[in-house]
């Protein structure tokens, strides 16, 4: 177990290293970050000062090593634009994005799992078709379009919900739906497929032969087993949502990580971009690990060898 944890951790570090060097290689493609930093009216002398201050005059590998050395010590660098430690900024924004991601996930699961189960109980029924339609339509709708349309109706025409911001729970309703809706199809399909498979399985027949009631059959015997792959998917999707919240956060002016990322991209704030990508990739690894633990808890075959 300990050895495995260590292996897992080293894997995470390796992934993070690869991701960070990939992100850092953006430096090769990028324009002069000093110009981005100096603003439109910076003179050549200003730029030179900036280059020296930030070490942009050094070769890129040296910059990378320097950055890495500091990153290992927990110092992800200083944001060019925001003039403060990148890590501080990220951890200040993270809770907002996490809250958004969690709300979106809860919305998605609350919609997709019951729909998936119901669809699986009666395949090809009207309900199944309805669920499938939701899935297909959901996958085809650009999230920004969906978000703006909701804003048009709920915030501007009906004035039920606030337009933007992140001050109260009301502010999270539309963004959560816009973000969560996109993963609903996948979770629903997986739940449906999992339930269909489990319902066909021998042990469900055994349970029926025991005279178990329909409800207990579905929720005690079937869902427990069908939910296992859904857990992994949900964890992975949660990771994707944290990364994919850029568009939604931009639209709804939620000052989370996604918006920070987008702003950093626009102002070529490389240390910030690198750090965000790094944090998100670490998050992804952590989430998959978490999903594994959760799966083991749900599935004794994994837990007890």
């Amino acid at each position, binding site marked *: 177990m300990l050895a495995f944890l260590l292996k897992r951790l080293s894997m995470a570090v390796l992934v993070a290293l690869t991701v960070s060097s990939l992100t850092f290689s953006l430096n090769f493609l990028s324009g002069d970050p000093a110009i981005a930093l100096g603003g439109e009216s910076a003179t050549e002398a200003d730029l030179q000062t900036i280059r020296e201050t930030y070490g942009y005059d050094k070769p890129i590998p040296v910059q990378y090593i320097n950055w890495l050395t500091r990153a290992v010590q927990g110092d992800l660098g200083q944001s060019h634009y925001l003039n403060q430690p990148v890590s501080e900024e990220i951890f200040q924004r993270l809770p907002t994005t996490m809250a958004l991601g969690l709300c979106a996930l809860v919305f998605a699961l609350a919609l997709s799992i019951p729909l998936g189960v119901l669809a699986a109980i009666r395949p090809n029924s009207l309900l199944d078709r309805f669920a499938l339609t939701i899935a297909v339509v959901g996958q085809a709708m*650009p999230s920004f379009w969906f978000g703006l349309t909701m804003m048009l109706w709920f915030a501007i025409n009906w004035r039920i919900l606030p337009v933007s911001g992140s001050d109260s729970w009301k502010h999270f309703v539309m963004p959560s739906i816009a973000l969560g809706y996109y993963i609903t199809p996948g979770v629903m399909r997986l739940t449906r497929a999992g339930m269909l498979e489990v319902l066909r399985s021998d042990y469900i027949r055994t349970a029926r032969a025991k005279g178990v009631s329909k409800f207990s059959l579905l929720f005690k015997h079937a869902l427990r087993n069908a939910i296992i792959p859904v857990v992994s998917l949900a964890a992975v999707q949660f990771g994707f949502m944290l990364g994919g919240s850029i568009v939604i956060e931009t639209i709804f002016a939620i000052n989370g990580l996604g918006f920070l990322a987008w702003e950093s991209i626009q102002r070529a704030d490389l240390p910030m971009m690198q750090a965000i990508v790094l944090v998100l990739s670490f998050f992804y690894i952590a989430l998959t690990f978490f999903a594994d633990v959760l799966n083991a808890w749900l599935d004794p075959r994994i837990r007890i060898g």
Partner: protein
Amino acid sequence: MSTLENNSLEPMADAPVLSPGKVMLSHAKSHRGLMLGGLVILTIMLVAIFAPLLAPHDPYAQVLSRKLVPPVWFDSSKATWDHILGTDHLGRDYLSRLIYGARISLLIGFSAMLISGVIGTVLGICAGYFGGRVDMVISFLITTRLSMPVVLVALAVISIVGSSLTVVIWVIGLLIWDRFAVVVRSATQQVRGLDFVASARALGSSTPRILFSEVMPNISNHVIVIATLEMAHAILLEAALSFLGLGVQPPTPSWGLMISDAKGLMFFDGWLIAVPGTALFLLVLAINLVGDGLRDVTAPEDRN
């Protein structure tokens, strides 16, 4: 004892040859979603091919004084049958741009899918077939790729190298191969374990031969299904990039770009975003329907 095995082969002599392709085709014909989606895609493809014949105007011709003419169904003095769908913010005919835009969306979807398909399939097959170290390295690549947020990385790269149709296609293509790789890898692992692959090895088939004749045909259905999904994914991704201003470059008539151009006026002139939005939605919906249909049709037949 032949009575037991019941020489049912005799009537089979005139039975039609049921190739897996034919079986699928016959299944496909009776699959409503697949047919409907296919029809929509076919229509859009025809429109794209015959765009020069169908478009009433040059999609690039701008008349600034005639900008933002509403579509004919609007009760407005500016509306005219000359511009059935109205004009955009530079006075270009919206219908013509929509028609030409089909080319771009299909091109992006198809090319990005092709790039990611090739990368993902090759990686997936290698990982699945060779296993061991190769699998370890490729699985690591997949994990790394999955851990990088697609939209973020795409935006960062495009914002730095500058965007053009080619850049967008390559960036998207290079970012969405993960699903191909994951699915192909596990499909290959399954096929590799089947006895006909062992048979082929025993019969002296070389590894490339086995990959092409034994493995590929048996994972192609997975690849095709993923290909449709990723094509839809690529089209949506381009729209999202365009929405943030980092997609295809103007004046290229792309649906994503049209949405992006129109988004500012969506609270006032909703049709501007509704027209290309609907086109995009229909295309992606159709592709997804086809993907779903293919998944149903190519699902492995039950043994029996």
